[in-house]
């Protein structure tokens, strides 16, 4: 991993088309301005990972589970038995 120190207003360039500028730093937060070609997808790392995980899990789901969920949805709202988890 390349580690660089930058001040507010300074940039780094990545390849020919990407620049990342430090806009502001305060209270443990860094605000970055990124310029990159439109076709380059930019995501917050943890969100990208979570979406990836969700998509991965979705591929493991069987038709029968979906049919079961569909049945529960069509039975209007999900009616949980009284005294279910979450009480007491």
């Amino acid at each position, binding site marked *: 991993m390349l580690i660089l120190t930058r001040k507010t207003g300074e940039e780094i360039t990545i390849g020919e088309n990407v620049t990342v500028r430090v806009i502001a730093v305060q209270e443990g937060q860094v605000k970055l301005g990124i310029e990159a070609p439109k076709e380059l997808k930019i995501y917050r790392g943890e*969100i990208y990972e979570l979406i*990836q995980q969700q998509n991965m899990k979705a591929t493991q789901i*069987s038709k029968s589970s*979906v049919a079961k*969920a*569909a049945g529960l949805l069509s039975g209007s709202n999900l009616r949980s038995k009284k005294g279910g988890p979450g009480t007491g």
Partner: protein
Amino acid sequence: MKFTSRQFGDIDYQETHEFQFPDGIIGFEHLRKFLIIDDEDSQPFRWLVSLEDPNLSFPMIPPSIVVPDYAPVLPTGGTVFAVAVLNEPIEQSTVNLRAPVMIDTVTREGRQVVLEQDRYSLQHPLFAPPAGVGGA
């Protein structure tokens, strides 16, 4: 055209029914060609079925079924779906409202969009919690 899917077996389809995903699906960026299958037993869910990997299909649901006033700011028009993750127990299933799948039935293109606003959850409960039990 013929295709064999693990989930649906042999599928006969016309090329005009294909959807192109120029960016793939997040985590599956190499997948570009999909069908959307409307399976009677699965309704209101639909299946986004990869034509390039017989093992990969994604259950999706129109988000308005889960959140009736779902109205994110989206870059393009089209039909919106949310990827569903069914868990065990099924009551704990979730839908991804933060990264909806947009389908343009005119251009036959699709993409999974990540919303900038954090108003919608990546793991929104599929089923409304039973009355009387507060959310976490």
